[in-house]
């Protein structure tokens, strides 16, 4: 009886532990499935035209998404200009100046802002930028993306500033440097690698956002000069092309998906590898 119970406990142990391993590998394999499918379908449809030509009207095959690629870059530029400085300075405040209660409130708000669904951010940018002037614009899309960049930058900046060894700070202070001088000339440069990587990760995250662009930057079949016109972007193009009933558009959607995924994954891969190396160098 006791032997039987022991056998049962041992087999349960073996079964459950192997199941956990199966679960982990199943989740990881999804990443490779995604990559494989996109390479398979997107690779076939990717051509030089994709990067250099405008979209063709329905029924004509060929054409590309050059305007969407430029549009996405412009939106990211706006997001960087508006979001990164706010995130950086707020992060400096939290790491270097913040008192207890106020910092807690800021940190909590930042986390909550980070959790706001991107479509709601889109509504906000719409009512802030689009409603007053009554038309969609690149600027509105940039505002939406910039707002999503802020919370990610704040938290990564704070984290990397806090990781700077106290001895550096004390050294600068002991030489008589004032606090802000210590921050500007010693601490920020020491943490700059990490902070920049964090910023790049934030941009990579918003580069794939579709929902906040649907009714801010909207979409455009042509070039979008300046900042005040509706603009095409890669994610929105993928969406509209994927739900359309034309095979040719589906092929373009796969190609755009491959390009977008490669950009986002490569940025993530590079950043995370750089961070890991720095992390292990510090602990070694």
């Amino acid at each position, binding site marked *: 009886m006791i032997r039987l119970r022991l056998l049962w406990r041992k087999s349960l142990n073996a079964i459950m532990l192997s199941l*956990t391993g199966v679960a982990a590998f199943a*989740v990881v394999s999804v990443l490779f499935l*995604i990559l494989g499918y996109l390479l398979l379908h997107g690779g076939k449809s990717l051509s030089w035209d994709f990067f250099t030509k405008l979209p063709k009207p329905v029924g004509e095959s060929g054409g590309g998404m050059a305007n969407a690629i430029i549009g996405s870059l412009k939106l990211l530029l706006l997001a960087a200009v508006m979001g990164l400085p706010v995130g950086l300075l707020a992060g400096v405040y939290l790491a270097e100046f913040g008192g207890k209660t106020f910092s807690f409130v800021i940190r909590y708000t930042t986390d909550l802002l980070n959790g706001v669904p991107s479509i709601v951010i889109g509504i906000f940018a719409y009512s802030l930028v689009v409603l007053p002037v009554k038309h969609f614009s690149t600027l509105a899309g940039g505002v939406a993306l910039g707002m999503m960049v802020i919370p990610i930058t704040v938290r990564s900046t704070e984290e990397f500033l806090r990781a700077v060894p106290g001895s550096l700070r004390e050294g600068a202070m002991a030489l008589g440097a004032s606090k802000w001088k210590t921050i500007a000339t010693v601490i920020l440069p020491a943490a700059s690698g990490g902070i920049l990587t964090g910023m790049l990760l934030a941009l990579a995250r918003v580069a*794939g956002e579709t929902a906040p662009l649907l009714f801010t930057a909207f979409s455009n079949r042509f070039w979008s000069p300046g900042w005040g016109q509706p603009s095409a972007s890669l994610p929105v193009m993928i*969406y509209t092309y994927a739900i359309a009933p034309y095979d040719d558009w589906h092929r373009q959607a796969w190609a755009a998906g491959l390009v977008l995924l490669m950009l986002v994954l490569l940025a993530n891969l590079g950043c995370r590898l750089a961070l890991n190396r720095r992390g292990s160098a510090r602990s070694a």
Partner: protein
Amino acid sequence: MSTTATTIEHAPPNRDRGGARALIQRLRHGDEVAHLVTLTFAAGILLLTSMLVYELWVNSHLSRAKFGWLFFWTRTWDPIFDNFGASPFIYGTLITSIVSLVIAVPLGIAAAIFLAELAPRKISDSISFLIDLLAAVPSVIYGLLGIFIVVPLMRTTIGPLLINTLGHLPYIGKLFKPPNYGVGFFTAGIVLAIMVVPFIISVSREVLLTVPRDQREAALALGATRWESTWQVVIPWARTGILGSIFLALARALGETMAVTMVIGNDPKITASLLAPGYTIAAVIANEFTEATGDLYLSALIELGLVLFLMTFILNGLARILIVATERGGGHSS
């Protein structure tokens, strides 16, 4: 600007000087300015978040005034006669999120156990790295694969399989009835599950790693198997934090837009069968916002946005509290 030499002179507090001069001195010093500037930007985040809530509240005024609480109960969504009820969307949002959690929670916790308790550090780190990459995949890509891979698979294989097996059971059977078009609550739930599982894994893994080593050793020393020590000692210790990770995942699932919009079928109906097409809050905003011509129509959509915001706001808040509580070692008190 203060050079190194002058700052040394100013280093002791200027107690004997007049208030105004002291202020000027301190401003020249630079610290106060830097403090003020960074504080402004930090406070800017507070302001931005309050503005977000304000805009949602003000712009949904028309709809709130006309429908009141009935907005949440009525089923009609009729832009032509300006009659709006949100219940099919709220229903769809909740159902798809629940389906996704039913799939993602066991999978995520199991994988987290493997990574935190079993796998050697090196393998665990590389798998976590890949799972972080999975979390970085844009949602529209999930939608793309959802439309062209998961939907056909549901229509031809998984759907009929579910109808023929689970569909015959009492009670649960109601959830798996034809018609099965491939798009619907269940398909959206599967895609959402894949999207939120990385969050459950990475947070749960972190929480599991904070469980003290001696807890495991004590259980093993008492003759528990590895699984028993994990299931009966480590998991209960970490359960508040794991619950936090589930809330976080739920908040993500509720607010997820693109992938769901592409596979849910966009039909505002409340149907018992999970295989039927439905609609979610985020999806209806994504689809109809640019077409909303009437003021009341737009206002109703913004009110839906407000509802979505409040749901995720509350869940995220709870999740943070739970995760912080466990990481500070509060989990063992249960």
